[in-house]
């Protein structure tokens, strides 16, 4: 493979940066990937026909996506299955060639797979493992150490540190096949970080794990990113992952970016309602006059109110009945995201969603 230096001017940045400002770690412009997917009906006859004449359908997995991620930033990719999250991630990790568009990661074009670039990044996939099944974890680590040419002392140091953070302890002398799913995932993650990458692509890193294990892995990644100033791009459909790790989220659906910004902003934009829960000592008559009733229980009423009306409604409530407790909250993020995906078009969003292009 030819050695190529970092490409400095391959992609024009979105904003005009003042001189001396470090470039973003990841810059993506109009990145598009289409797949030709073979298509046939079920049944033997259709299968036979398919042998001679393959019908393929072009599926747009990622459609002209653009964004930039600063060094040290943790960004969460949110979207339902087949939204194009993983495809985008794989292009940035250099695994897939895009159909069109441009991207640089640390100044390198990922799919040229420059060794220097590969040495600085890693990929963790929750549903696949790279550790060798039959031998102890430590031997698989040794394999990675050798391939990445990590010097012995540095390797020891990193392994001790990771082992400490992930609480690997006695796990690494066991064969992989004797580990539980949670233990295996922790070992996988350590194995993927032995070369201390500065860019982490995490594809559903907590898939299938129980809540405790998920929490542990989240706090680990936060710790790692802090310590090494690592740039992290995370996909997940567990909202809690994204909430815990990322300050910024990118919502992707049917290959298009629907939202890119702070988590708080997403709530602002897609949740025009607030939830008011009141505990009352006397029954609240006709709660429907205050807002949309969510639930009425013994001594507790939950209603939803448009944001601008929150103050007025609260005042009226406090005046009308004897309130023992009152809370105002945003609806759960999961619910908001759900609504985004179900309605597909978003209030005030500039993005138009074309019909049915999802990759399944």
């Amino acid at each position, binding site marked *: 493979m030819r050695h190529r230096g970092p490409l400095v001017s391959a992609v024009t940045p979105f904003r005009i940066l003042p001189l001396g400002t470090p470039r973003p770690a990841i810059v993506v412009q109009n990145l598009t990937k289409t797949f030709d997917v073979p298509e046939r009906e079920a049944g033997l006859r259709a299968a036979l026909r398919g042998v001679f004449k393959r019908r393929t359908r072009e599926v747009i997995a990622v459609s002209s996506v653009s964004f930039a991620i600063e060094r040290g930033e943790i960004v969460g990719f949110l979207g339902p299955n087949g939204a194009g999250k993983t495809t985008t991630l794989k292009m940035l990790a250099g695994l897939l060639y895009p159909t069109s568009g441009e991207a640089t990661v640390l100044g390198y074009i990922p799919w040229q797979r420059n060794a220097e670039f590969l*040495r600085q990044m890693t990929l963790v996939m929750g549903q696949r493992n790279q550790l060798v099944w039959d031998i102890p974890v430590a031997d698989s680590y040794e394999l990675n150490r050798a*391939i990445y040419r990590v010097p012995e002392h540095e390797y020891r140091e990193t392994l001790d540190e990771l082992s400490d953070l992930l609480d690997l302890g006695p796990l690494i002398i066991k064969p992989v096949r004797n580990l539980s799913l949670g233990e295996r995932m922790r070992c996988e993650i350590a194995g993927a970080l032995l070369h201390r990458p500065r860019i982490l692509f995490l594809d559903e890193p907590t898939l299938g794990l129980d809540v405790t294990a998920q929490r542990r892995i989240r706090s680990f990644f936060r710790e790692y990113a802090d310590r090494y100033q690592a740039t992290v791009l995370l996909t997940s459909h567990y909202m809690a992952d994204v909430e815990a790790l990322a300050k910024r989220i990118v919502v992707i659906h049917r290959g298009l970016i629907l939202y890119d910004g702070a988590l708080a902003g997403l709530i602002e934009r897609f949740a025009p309602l607030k939830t008011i829960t009141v505990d009352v000592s006397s029954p609240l008559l006709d709660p429907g006059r205050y807002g949309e009733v969510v639930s009425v229980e013994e001594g507790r009423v939950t209603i939803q109110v448009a944001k601008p009306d929150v103050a007025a409604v609260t005042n009226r409530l406090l005046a009308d009945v004897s309130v023992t407790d009152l809370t105002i909250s945003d609806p759960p993020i999961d619910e908001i995201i759900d609504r985004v995906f179900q309605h597909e078009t978003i209030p005030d969003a500039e993005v138009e969603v074309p019909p049915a292009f999802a990759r399944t």
Partner: protein
Amino acid sequence: MTWLRLILIHLRIAVLNELQYRTNLGLQLFQSAVALATSLVSIAFVFSKTDHLAGWSASQLLAVVGVYFLVGGLTQLFILPSLGRFMEDVRLGALDFALIKPVDSQLLITTRQVEAWKVIDVLIGVCVIGVALVQMGTSLDPIQAMVFVIVLVAGVVVVSSFVMILATCAFWFIRVQNILVIFQAMYEAGRWPITIYPPWLQGALTFLVPVGFAITVPAEALVGRLDWRLLAGAVALAVVLPVFSRWFWMMGLRAYSGASA
């Protein structure tokens, strides 16, 4: 150099893996012994009826068997099993982890699976060749020995590149494991010098599947009946095929779509 380093790294893993299951050595010895016995018995049978087979004497045929084991052992040491694993990985989507490593992807995928016991076949090959040379009563002069080594290396390179090209098809067709089975079957035909087969089959075994270049040509060099044109052809092929396989691999990487999300 990288290649050698990668082979050694994976050899270590292979040995560790083998030590987990200790029955393999016995099985491998048994399998090699059966294969050798089959070859020897069929040669003995043929030569109980005749003195020459298409111009080859019994001891010369023994040399062919020796080269058959030697080349088979060398290619099955890591290249063929690694390519088998590669095809499996493409189908299951496990290739991603190989492609993100900071080493040349083609070198990496041809070294990931080492079958250390195939050394037995290599040793058998060397011994059988030795016995054949003694039987023929000829001693190899240095030039002849050098030519043998050249065509042997060329043969291994040709077979490896050829299978590499077949395996690369997995990027487009996903399920191509059968190709390796077909190749193994064709390779079996190399137990005999291909000159004993009808011309159409000789052609197929030379150009369609380069078994002729891998086994018959080195054996001919050994028994001193190699045509210089075949020597030139083998060397040329050993240069052209790897270059082509490299180009084809790069095309394959472009086409790789990864097992779905």
